[in-house]
C-alpha cells in the first residue's frame, strides 16, 4: 500500500513537472524553435538583459507577495469569524466571487476603479492590481482555512479561555498554531493564483504595473520565445531554492 502510494505520487509528480522540464530544457536550446541545436545560455543572458522582463518579474513578485500577505491575514481572520458563526451575506459573496468568470471580475473592477478614480483622481497602477488580486484570492484563502477549521476541536479554544486566555489570546496561542498548516496551504494557493493571473491583471494594470504574465502573453502572441522559458526557469528555480532554504532554516 505504502509503496503503491509512493509510486502513484511519483507518477503524479512526473505529470506535474513534465512540462516544466520541457520548458527548462528548451531554454538551453541554441535555436529559437523547437528543434534541438545545441546547448546555449544565450536565452538567459537575453532574459536578464531584458529590463522590461526583469521589471515585470519583480512587479509580479511584489504584487503576489503583498496580495498574498494581505489576503492570507484577512482571509484567515474571516474564516475564523465565519467558523464561529456563519454570516449569510459574507459567505455568499465569497462563493459568488469564486464563481465569477475572470473576465467579469476584471471588467467590473476596471469599471469600478475608473468610476471611483474619477472622484479621487488616482490612476490605474500597482495599487489597483494589488487590490484586485486581494479581492479574488480571499475566497481561496477562506475556503482552505475553513476546511482546516472544520476539523478543529472547539473545546481546545474553550480550554484556552478556561485557562485564563481571552478570546484574542485563545485564537493567537491555540487556534492559529493548530490550523497553521492550513493557513500556509492557503497562502501558497493565494500566491499561486496571484502570480499566474493574466486576465484580471491585464485589465486593471496601469502604466507602472506590467506583470510577468502580461509580458509573456505579449511575447507569446508572436510565437513562443525561449526567452520566456528562461525567465520562467529562473523564477521557478529561484523560488524553489528560497523555499528549500526557508525549510532548512525552520528545521534548524
Amino acid at each position: 500500500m505504502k509503496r503503491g502510494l509512493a509510486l502513484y505520487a511519483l507518477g503524479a509528480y512526473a505529470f506535474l513537472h513534465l512540462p516544466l522540464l520541457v520548458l527548462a530544457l528548451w531554454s538551453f536550446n541554441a535555436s529559437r524553435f523547437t528543434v534541438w541545436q545545441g546547448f546555449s545560455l544565450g536565452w538567459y543572458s537575453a532574459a536578464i538583459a531584458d529590463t522590461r522582463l526583469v521589471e515585470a518579474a519583480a512587479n509580479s513578485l511584489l504584487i503576489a507577495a503583498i496580495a498574498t500577505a494581505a489576503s492570507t491575514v484577512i482571509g484567515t481572520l474571516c474564516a475564523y469569524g465565519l467558523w464561529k458563526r456563519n454570516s449569510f451575506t459574507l459567505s455568499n459573496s465569497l462563493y459568488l466571487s469564486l464563481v465569477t468568470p475572470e473576465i467579469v471580475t476584471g471588467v467590473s473592477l476596471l469599471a469600478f476603479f475608473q468610476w471611483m478614480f474619477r472622484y479621487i483622481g488616482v490612476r490605474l497602477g500597482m495599487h489597483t492590481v494589488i487590490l484586485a488580486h486581494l479581492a479574488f484570492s480571499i475566497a481561496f484563502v477562506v475556503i482552505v482555512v475553513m476546511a482546516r477549521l472544520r476539523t478543529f476541536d472547539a473545546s481546545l479554544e474553550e480550554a484556552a479561555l478556561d485557562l485564563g486566555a481571552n478570546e484574542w489570546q485563545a485564537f493567537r496561542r491555540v487556534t492559529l498554531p493548530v490550523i497553521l498548516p492550513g493557513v500556509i496551504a492557503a497562502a501558497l494557493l493565494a500566491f499561486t493564483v496571484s502570480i499566474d493571473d493574466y486576465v484580471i491583471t491585464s485589465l486593471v494594470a496601469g502604466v507602472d504595473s506590467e506583470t510577468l504574465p502580461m509580458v509573456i502573453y505579449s511575447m507569446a502572441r508572436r510565437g513562443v520565445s525561449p526567452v520566456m522559458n528562461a525567465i520562467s526557469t529562473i523564477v521557478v528555480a529561484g523560488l524553489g531554492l528560497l523555499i528549500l532554504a526557508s525549510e532548512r532554516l525552520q528545521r534548524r
Partner: protein
Amino acid sequence: MNRRIFLLSLPGLAGCTMSSRPRLNVYNWSEYVAPDTISNFEREFGVRVRYSTYESAEELVAKVWSGNSGWDVVFPSNTYIPPMRDQKLLAPVRHEWLPNLGNLEPVYQSPSWDPRLEWSVPYMHGATGIVYNSNVVHAAPGSWADFWQDRFERRATMLDDPVEVIGAALLKLGYPLNSGDAVQLRQARNEAISIKPRLRAYVNAEVRDQLIAGDMLAAQMWSADAQRSINASPALRFVYPSEGFALYGDAAVVLRESRRARLAHEFVNYLLRPEVSSAIALACGSSTANAAAMRLLPEPVRNNSTLYPGPNLLARGQWLETLTPASQRLRDRLWTEIKSA
C-alpha cells in the same frame, strides 16, 4: 519568504515612481517597435517613456474607454478609430506639430477611416492570407476555395477570429468582406461549418512552430506573422487569395485625456522619421505605411510581396470596416454557432 521578497523589491518600486524628467506613457501592440526605438527617443528628448503593450484591441479599448487610463499615445486598429472618435476619446491631430506627416505613402495620407488624418496617423498595415509549406504542398493554394479542398484535410488551421473566418467564407462566396447582409452571412456560416471538420484548429500566431515543423500544411495567417514564419523557414510561402483578402491598418492616436499633447505629438513625429520607421519595420517584420521609410529598406524587403504586395495585388484587398451593431451581433451569433457546430 514573503517578507524577504517584499523588502528586496521595495527599492525597485521606489525607482518606478520617482523621476523628475517629464514622462510620456505609450501603450502599443506587442512587438511593434524596434529594441532601441524608445530608448533613442528618451535620450534625444530627455524624457522618460513608460512603454507597455496589449494583445488585443479589446484590451486597449477597455482601458481607454473611460477616458482616464493614464496613457498618452496608443495604436488602435483602423476599425476602432471612428468609434473612439465618436466617443470623444481622441485628441485632434495637430498637423503643425507633425512635419514628418508628409513621409506617409499617398494611400495612407487619406485612408477611408480618417480621410484628412484629423484623428489618427497611420503606422503599420497588414493583410490576411494563406501560408503553406512548399516542401509538402506542391500545388500552391491560390484562393480561399483551395483551402476548402480535401488535400489539406486536418492539416490546416484558420485564425481564431470571427472577422477572418467569416470573412474568408464571405470572400469565397464572392460576397464583400464587410457584408452586413443576413442572408450572405448565414451562407458564410454554412461555408465555415462545412470546412470545420477539415480544419485541425482555430489558432493565431502560435501555429508558426507547427508550420515550420510540418505538423500543418497550410494556415490562414496575418502577413506580418507569416513573414516572421518565412524568415524562420524558407520553405513557407504566403499567398494573397484570388477572391480577395482583408486589409487592416494600425494608427497612432493621441488620447484626449493626455496632458502632454505636445510631447505626444513629438513622439508620433519621431515615429514618422524614415530611419525610425524603417528600423521598426525591419525589426518587427511588419509593413510600414511610411513611403520615405520604405525607400530606406533593403531591396529584398522592399520587394517582398508578403509585406508589400504592390498596387496590383492590393487592388483585390478590402479594408476592414467598423461593423454596424446589427451586423456585429449577427456575426457573433453565427460565430458561436460555427464554434459549437
